[in-house]
């Protein structure tokens, strides 16, 4: 015999609203739980997203090309030539938003009072800005004007350490490929700030052409940094560049910054755990509600069995009733979550607690990120686990013996 779907569904719907108050309370509980699942996930995603994006700006780019040995020993000996025809084809393709070739070597910077070890970046300011350098981070002076600019831009902290300031001269010293000392005087044309204090202390920007001349490397660079469209999927870009740049090391940020990529992966697991934990809290209420509903209806269930409903039809009725409750709660919860997340798109000011978060690389604004897969996951968790937890009460209901159930008062 086919399952009497229509008859059972109507009963389920009517029964759902029989104890109006209890149903509404349970609905609100489910909605709140779903809201917490989606909203908190969006916040966590926002936080990790922020860290990843900051990390990518610091790298910079989604994919980088280096000489094979550069990452072990980032000296100028391990450099690469300006990109050739095959690579340019990929770099100028539509999957690339911006790219820039840069020099990045260890160096020493000296003011008249102090000296410190730094990372000297020979950059093309236009490319650097396209890769994500924020001009608002310049707190004094200005950024370099072009690759031939003879000035340097140093971090706020470094200026403090060197006891120097905007307009003063500093000497930068490194080695050329023949291990000969190469040095040059620069005027400080700009001071930048960064979320990470460490960057302010160790990064020094200079014009790429100027650094190339100083290090006597012609057109060679240390790395080519490439920005794609979606940081979540840098693999294709990395693969294409890898094909075009045989003999060089092409890595995506996932490999370049394993800390960040691990964090992103761990987040996925964490989101699922978070959702399941919330559901577990809900499930007590759900089972309790269903058990109470069934207990109130023992005689009716006996009657239905006596009239010829199979036990499976009873299970079906209870499950449909539970599903209706879950679906309504989900609907409410989703609407609630989306309508509270969207107005917060412009960011939540968390500067009060940002002090501690800077350590992890997060900024003082938190932007919740609503990802549809997360919403889908929350819904799936509630439906799947909800049905599973309803199975026990439903099965119990179906096992009442008709006479005994009918005789119950």
């Amino acid at each position, binding site marked *: 015999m086919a399952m009497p779907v229509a008859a059972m569904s109507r*009963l389920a719907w009517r029964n759902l609203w029989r104890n109006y108050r209890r149903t509404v309370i349970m609905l609100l509980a489910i909605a709140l739980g779903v809201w917490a699942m989606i909203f908190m996930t969006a916040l966590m995603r926002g936080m990790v997203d922020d860290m990843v994006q900051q990390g990518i700006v610091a790298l910079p780019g989604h994919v980088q090309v280096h000489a094979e040995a550069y990452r072990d020993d980032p000296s100028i000996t391990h450099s690469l030539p300006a990109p050739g025809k095959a690579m340019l084809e990929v770099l100028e393709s539509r999957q690339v938003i911006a790219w820039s070739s840069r020099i990045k070597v260890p160096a020493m910077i000296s003011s008249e009072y102090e000296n410190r070890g730094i990372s000297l970046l020979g950059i093309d300011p236009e490319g650097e800005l396209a890769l994500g350098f924020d001009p608002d981070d310049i707190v004094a002076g200005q950024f370099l004007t072009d690759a031939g600019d003879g000035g340097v831009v140093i971090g706020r902290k470094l200026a403090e350490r060197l006891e120097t300031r905007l307009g003063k001269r500093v000497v930068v010293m490194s080695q050329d490929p023949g291990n000969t000392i190469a040095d040059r005087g620069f005027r400080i044309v700009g001071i930048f700030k960064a979320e990470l204090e460490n960057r302010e202390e160790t990064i020094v920007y200079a014009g790429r052409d100027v650094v190339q001349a100083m290090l006597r490397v012609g057109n060679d660079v240390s790395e080519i940094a490439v920005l794609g469209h979606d940081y979540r999927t840098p693999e294709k870009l990395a693969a294409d560049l890898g094909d075009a740049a045989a003999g060089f090391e092409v890595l995506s940020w996932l490999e370049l910054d394993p800390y960040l990529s691990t964090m992103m992966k761990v987040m996925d697991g964490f989101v699922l755990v978070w959702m399941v934990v919330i559901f577990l809290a809900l499930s007590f209420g759900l089972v309790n509600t269903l058990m109470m509903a069934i207990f109130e209806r023992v005689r009716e269930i006996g*009657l239905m069995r006596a009239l*010829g409903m*199979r036990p499976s039809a009873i299970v079906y009725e209870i499950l449909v009733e539970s599903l209706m409750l879950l679906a309504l709660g989900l609907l409410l919860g989703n609407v609630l979550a989306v309508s509270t997340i969207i107005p917060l798109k412009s960011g939540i000011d968390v500067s009060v607690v940002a002090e501690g978060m800077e350590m992890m690389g997060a900024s003082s604004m938190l932007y919740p990120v609503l990802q549809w897969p997360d919403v889908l996951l929350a819904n799936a968790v509630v439906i799947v686990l909800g049905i599973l937890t309803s199975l026990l009460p439903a099965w119990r209901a179906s096992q009442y013996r008709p006479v005994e159930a*009918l005789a119950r008062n």
Partner: protein
Amino acid sequence: MSAIVCTDLCKFYQQGDAVIKGLDHVSLEIEEGSFICISGPSGSGKTTLLNAIGGLDSLDSGQIAINGERVDLLGKAELADLRLHSIGFVFQAYNLIPVLSARENVEFVMQVQGVRAAERKLQSMKILQEVGLEGMEDRRPAQLSGGQQQRVAVARAIVSQPKLVLADEPTANLDSQSMEKLMAHFRELNEAHKVTFLIATHDQRVMAWADRRIYMEDGRVTRDELQ
């Protein structure tokens, strides 16, 4: 061949030290198309017998065959199907699903049987009119009197013309005029469609309609007389 054959039915209830005999070696043969009333004092086993025949309750021993099929050997799902398609029940006390209206209650069994909506409506309206509930189709059970509820239950039991109707005190809450009308209706179904009726009752006036009267006492059949 008889429609229903009960052989040596026993159903005992342990109540402390005492054993209550619900059914005590009851054997019966019921012809197809019979119109039978079962009578006896309260606690004599009438309900227990009807429930056993309808497969609602298990037996301690004995056999029940309906049209040659051993009902006592069927599984839960098969018993449910048998009740759904072949048996109309009227219970002594709790009869209606409270969240469904009178008409929906009557239609419920038909709906589960898979009868189409238009046909269901036609049948249920007709039967409700016949049992004198015209105009009350949309009321919920709580909005009906005991007698009206009982008539809805009767309507549901006979609406799809089952082979067998097991009615436990179907007239308990009815005035004598309604009772006579109902019995006449039963009789008509019985004669026109050969529906077998098994009616448990205390009421002498109901007994008067029967072809065959079975008297029970302490779980045993004490008298069994044809009219």
